């Protein structure tokens, strides 16, 4: 197996999933890059996580009564899924269409929303926006249930345009006006949720979307230059055919899967980092009839994707889930996962509870002196624990290379088995010198595993390892 194929596969699996062990990378590379892309794009070809096992081991996840249990459950799914892109796409849409636990009547509503992302999230963007418009968690989060024909609440109308489909503007121009916001809000009057049943004495209840025709504004509306007696689905149809919608989806995809873009509020006036790549994705959006899966196929098979290695700062979720998949921890439901999910929060990403409706700022903004220490210590603790199956696999693989191994080979071998990471020359030389200072390294000794673990710890503490 050519190492360059494995390195490319490592890149694909980090971006389209949450990373993979070296053994999995070898197997996937043997199967081929495009075949792996197709497998990832068609998650139903792989077995789903068995919910009955989760129920047996972690009944508190089933009740979905609280944020921490919900975070544990999702983290467990991300660590163990055989359909990594299915969870990654759910995370992608959660970054964009975020609702927050802070404003959610019934927590399970957010799990129902995630399930929608797992299915509709690969499909037609217009259908996804329709699903979102009727998602009880979102209707409540953005107050559309408080919007009435004689007193509109603009919150949903505004965020649908600004944060969920078009963006404020592109190429220096605005994508919509304040009047468009109001007209969209009017068109969505009557889109509400069933009255919530009081919490006491039996606890909370699931809400359902309902359309209340008696509370809908039937008068004529003018939206994005088109005039008619629009209802919500007309607004979604008009939105989905805008060039700005293509740009919006393409640029978000690029930012999430390829390379860090500036923060979203800057997009009106800051051109894409790679305009040609974004153009390719926009073209595919229209060619395929707004099909997300088709756009992802173009993306993963493109040169711009294959060449964008280590151009993206890992999110806290990617850091923790990727580390667990690498070392092989929490591959069965067991207590203790809460510490992992709290670590994701301490690193700055409280899943299902984003700081604002804008979601999280990504890229370099994940890192400050507090979150950096959390990230380095968490990752270093995990890879330095030589009892982990994944760490043992790295040790035994390097140990089979001969009676001794050189300092250069220790550094390069660890980088390779972590998924072909790359270090700046000065950093690599520092690590080689560190290994030299410990003396000759004999593979058959007890010391060997410890030394490999320490080298892994030093590697994951570098700035290079903050990227994927």
């Amino acid at each position, binding site marked *: 197996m050519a190492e360059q194929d494995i390195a490319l596969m490592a890149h694909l699996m980090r971006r389209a999933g949450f990373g993979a062990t070296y053994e999995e990378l070898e197997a996937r590379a043997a199967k081929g890059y495009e075949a792996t892309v197709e497998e990832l794009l068609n998650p139903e070809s792989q077995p789903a996580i068995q919910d009955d096992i989760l129920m047996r081991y972690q009944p508190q996840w089933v009740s979905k009564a609280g944020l921490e249990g919900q975070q544990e459950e999702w983290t467990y799914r991300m660590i163990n899924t055989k359909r990594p892109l299915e969870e990654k796409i759910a995370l992608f849409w959660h970054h964009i269409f975020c609702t927050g636990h802070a404003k959610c009547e019934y927590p399970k509503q957010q799990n129902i929303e995630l399930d929608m992302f797992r299915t509709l999230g690969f499909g037609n963007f217009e259908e996804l926006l329709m699903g979102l418009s009727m998602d009880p968690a979102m209707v409540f989060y953005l107050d559309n249930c408080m919007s009435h024909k004689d007193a509109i609440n603009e919150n949903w109308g505004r965020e649908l345009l600004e944060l969920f489909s078009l963006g404020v503007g592109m190429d220096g121009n605005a994508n919509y006006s304040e009047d468009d916001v109001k007209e969209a809000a009017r068109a969505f009057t009557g889109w509400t949720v069933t009255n919530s049943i009081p919490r006491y004495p039996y606890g909370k209840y699931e809400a359902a979307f309902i359309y209340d025709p008696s509370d809908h504004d039937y008068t004529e509306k003018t939206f994005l230059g088109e005039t008619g007696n629009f209802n919500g689905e007309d607004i979604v149809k008009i939105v989905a055919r805008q060039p700005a919608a293509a740009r919006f989806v393409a640029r978000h995809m690029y930012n999430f899967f390829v390379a860090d873009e500036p923060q979203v509020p800057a997009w009106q006036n800051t051109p894409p980092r790679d305009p040609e790549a974004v153009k390719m994705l926009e073209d595919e959006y229209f060619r395929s009839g707004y099909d997300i899966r088709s756009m992802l196929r173009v993306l993963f098979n493109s040169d711009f994707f294959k060449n964008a290695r280590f151009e993206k700062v890992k999110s806290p979720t990617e850091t923790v889930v990727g580390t667990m998949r690498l070392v092989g921890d929490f591959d069965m439901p067991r207590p203790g996962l809460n510490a992992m999910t*709290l670590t994701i929060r301490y690193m700055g990403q409280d899943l299902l509870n984003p700081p604002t409706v804008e979601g999280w700022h990504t890229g370099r903004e994940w890192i400050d002196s*507090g979150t*950096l220490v959390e990230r*380095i210590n968490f990752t*270093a603790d995990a890879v330095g624990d030589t009892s982990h199956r994944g760490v043992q696999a790295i040790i035994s693989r390097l140990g089979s290379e001969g009676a001794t191994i050189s300092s250069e080979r220790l550094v390069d071998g660890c980088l390779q088995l972590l998924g072909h990471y790359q270090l700046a020359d*000065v950093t690599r030389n520092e690590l080689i010198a560190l290994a030299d200072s410990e003396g000759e390294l004999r593979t058959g000794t007890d010391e060997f595993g410890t030394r490999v673990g*320490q080298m892994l710890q030093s590697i994951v503490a570098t*700035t290079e390892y*903050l990227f994927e």
Partner: protein
Amino acid sequence: MTSTKKDPVLVVLQLSGGNDALNTIVPYGDPLYLDNRPNVRIPVDQVLPINDRIGFNPAMGPMKRLYDEGKVAIIQGVGYPTPSRSHFRSMDIWHTCEPDKVGDEGWLGRAVRDLDPGKENVLTGVNFGRGLPRALVAPGVPVASVGNLETYGVLTGIEIEEQRTKALDVFSRVYSPMLGQGPVLDYFAQTGLDALEGADILSTAPQMYSSSVEYGNDTVAQYMRNIAQTHLAGFGTRVFYTTAPYNSFDTHAGELANHTRLWTETSHAVADFYDDLKEHNAGDEVVLLVFTEFGRRVHDNGSGTDHGSGGVAFLVGENVNGGLYGEYPSLEDNKLLEGDLHYNNDFRGLYSTLLEKHMGLDAQPIVNGSFEQMDFI
């Protein structure tokens, strides 16, 4: 010129979950209190009286002692207009001073930026606890966040000290900003060095510390001790922050037992902290603010209380003008706001007082407006 006056220091203790104001400063002289609290009520004869109307929860003896010495200001009816009863949202409003929109900068993050605009001290702001509260977040402002002062540091998982020293040595060199690596990597490198420097300095604090005060073993007490240790070590920290365990004050059920334990721990921690600084002659420059995101419903739910609004805050310090501030909110039905105590003191006025009269900063841009200040300093 030399000055013997020490730089002012602000310490904030956040009581997370919504502390029940009515069972903290208890309106035991008001028959409406007894009516509204058929089950979750402090027995009148156990209240530690302040006057014939109100008194401290019986678990708050240590704070009552400081109050009697004139070192505690009680801010009654503190809140903000159109209160949110969501923990997250209401805490966010207290953190960002943005009740109408979602803000992304914290008031103390801004204060740290104003105190140390040149970022000369990586420890100007220090949080004890894991994860940085929004109050301390401001773009480009480094704030150390310490989960455990005794073990705080980078690569603490490397157990053999010699190995760790070597690894940190490498760390400090690979995190040195390098020519031409671009702004993102420069930023990461500087952040890594800030973290390392902060950890190096902070790790020396426990060894420099000795005190006759024995703090409790609960989280709040240990973090208040850590704050005392760090303050006494003289690293120039101006803003300290710590938080009671997440949502611990959220007493929907079993309130009487839980709330008693919480205030036993908290009031001992507050008084121990005060005594500790006094013993070291290091309390004159320090003011401690104790706050929560909201009070709780006037009427109990049988075993606890649900989310409400108007709450109570405390200021503790050698130079605090002790006493009662604001008015105790009325419990009369027609004065309540949707069944909750109505605030009469905007928390942003409380913040402004601390920022201007204590810290010497311009409060207006930090709290997003001008608010009436108080006389507790």
